[in-house]
């Protein structure tokens, strides 16, 4: 107690500001609650309305007629929609595998080795993140036209790997920075060769990072419209490109149903990502 007094005495030249009255904090808190509430309402009301109207039997307009599942039936019996969905999934799966492998290897190289031009590569890996999608889309369109590669699934996969890879790289780079290399050294001291060390130690430890970057790549690929729009061919529309065409043509209630289904998929992906994160912490 006595020492506290001395300590306070020494610091007496600096005047601590009096603590704010609780009423002031209450007011600030009220403002925060209000803003947060309205922001979430702003984010969710359009989505909720869209979901509600996907169950409306009316063909046009926004008057509620009756509950109906007819638009969902239409979606599942429309071969063009199903084809577009299949294309989206194929492209997303291939782009995920490609970008995760390439991005992870590159992150390992950049994290663990010193070499010339490393800084230039680092800058180049950031560039796809900061240049607008539209620029990437048209430059790829020009490129594929220049090398005479006809547009389709192949050009889609190539482009999707190109824009997903930097995101995988950045995620993996952050994970690798926290990586405890003494575990690898311990394995090697115990006689494991490099391949065994990689397979039994490095890879399992990197797995959570790999899974979350795979989820990120998968979502980015599935969500992409702008780049896909420019590199897609006639028979290889992805789902967002198909939706775009339908929206521009006019109101079709089927779009509400597809949107609701896509929303459901995003919710599933978020839940999976959250579960993985929770297991990681445990």
């Amino acid at each position, binding site marked *: 107690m006595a020492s506290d007094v001395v300590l306070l005495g020494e610091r007496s030249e600096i005047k601590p*500001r009096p*603590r704010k009255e609780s009423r002031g904090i209450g007011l600030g808190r009220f403002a*925060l609650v209000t803003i947060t509430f309205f922001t979430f309402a702003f984010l969710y009301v359009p989505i909720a309305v*869209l979901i509600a109207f996907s169950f409306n039997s009316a063909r046009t307009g*926004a008057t509620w007629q009756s509950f109906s599942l007819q638009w969902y039936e239409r979606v599942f019996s429309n071969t063009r929609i199903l084809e577009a969905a299949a294309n989206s999934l194929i492209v997303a799966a291939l782009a995920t595998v490609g970008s995760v492998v390439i991005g992870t290897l590159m992150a390992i190289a950049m994290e663990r*080795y010193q070499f010339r031009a490393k800084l230039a590569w680092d800058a*180049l890996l950031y560039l796809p993140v900061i240049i607008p999608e539209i620029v990437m889309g048209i*430059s790829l369109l020009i490129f594929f036209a220049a090398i005479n590669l006809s547009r389709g699934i192949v050009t889609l996969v190539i482009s999707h790997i190109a824009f997903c890879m*930097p995101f995988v790289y950045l995620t993996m780079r952050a994970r690798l920075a926290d990586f405890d290399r003494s575990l690898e050294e311990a394995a090697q001291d115990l006689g494991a060769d490099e391949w065994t060390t990689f397979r039994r130690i490095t890879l399992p430890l990197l797995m959570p990072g790999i899974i979350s970057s795979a989820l990120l790549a998968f979502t980015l690929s599935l969500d992409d419209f702008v780049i896909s729009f420019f590199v897609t061919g006639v028979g290889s529309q992805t789902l967002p490109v198909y939706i775009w065409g339908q929206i521009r043509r006019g109101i079709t209630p089927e779009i509400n149903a597809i949107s609701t289904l896509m929303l459901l998929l*995003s919710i599933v992906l978020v839940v999976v990502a959250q579960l993985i994160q929770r297991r990681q912490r445990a």
Partner: protein
Amino acid sequence: MAKILRVLREQPGIRLAGLMAPGAFWLSVFFLVPLLIMAWISFLSRDPLGFPTPPLTLQNYWEIIRDIRFAPSISLADGLAIRLFEGLYLELFWRSIWLSLLSTVITLLIAFPVALFMARLPPRYRNLALFLVMIPFWTNFLVRTYALQFMLRSNGPINTLLRALGLEPIELLFTPTAVMLGLVYGNLPFMILPLYTSLEKFDWTMIEAAHDLGADTLRAFQRVMLPLISPGLLAGSILTFVPAIGAYITVELMGGGRTNMIGYAIAQQFSASVNWPFGSAMSLLMMIIVTFAAVLYFRSGRGEYRNAI
């Protein structure tokens, strides 16, 4: 296998090359080379169909700056606008930069209190709030913009409600304000999430310490909080500004193409009115502007950080 591994072990250079090669190849061939070809094409002429053709020219860049003339004016049409120069494409670029900056600031002003509130919630509610931000974050951008457009349509739910109440329906879409609303709506999650990540790690006792040392709230925010949350602030601003300036979906769906922005104008050169060289020139200019803005922004952020320490 063992032999290959022995070679690898003895030659770290080969191993590095093996790790770098696929990524370096992909990034060079499918990112850098296309950009270089685009830059090259921006200096070519257009053939009758609008595709690039040999004679080198500066015509495409001249086209952009050709009609710029000195004409100072102040107008209140789309918010306060002070202009010194006039010109078709100058205005297009200026409007895009202005709308993107403004939408970034508005998004930040909304997102900051939300992220702050979320970060101070008890852990259980915090996870729920985080979940609620993650869903729009991961939902297709096109689908979300479509949802907003659906709400605001002339025969959409809002106007139907107004009519039911006996009021006049209002045209909510196809104005610069609608585009702005679309940009804020679309980009909000991309601002909230990085801000929240930074704020969640923030140690609030430091604010108390600053107060104890005599700092007022503003000073404590400026000197203690801002430097520590600047990574989230930078990431959120970049993730908002870049899609805004290159916006295509929002300009078409919310603005009906009437409030033209660079990204939309570029897309037009490759779809509706074909002129690849001119589109490439605009594209290259936009890329330079965005990269320049990003570098400047990162610099300023780091400078602030240094001053604070």
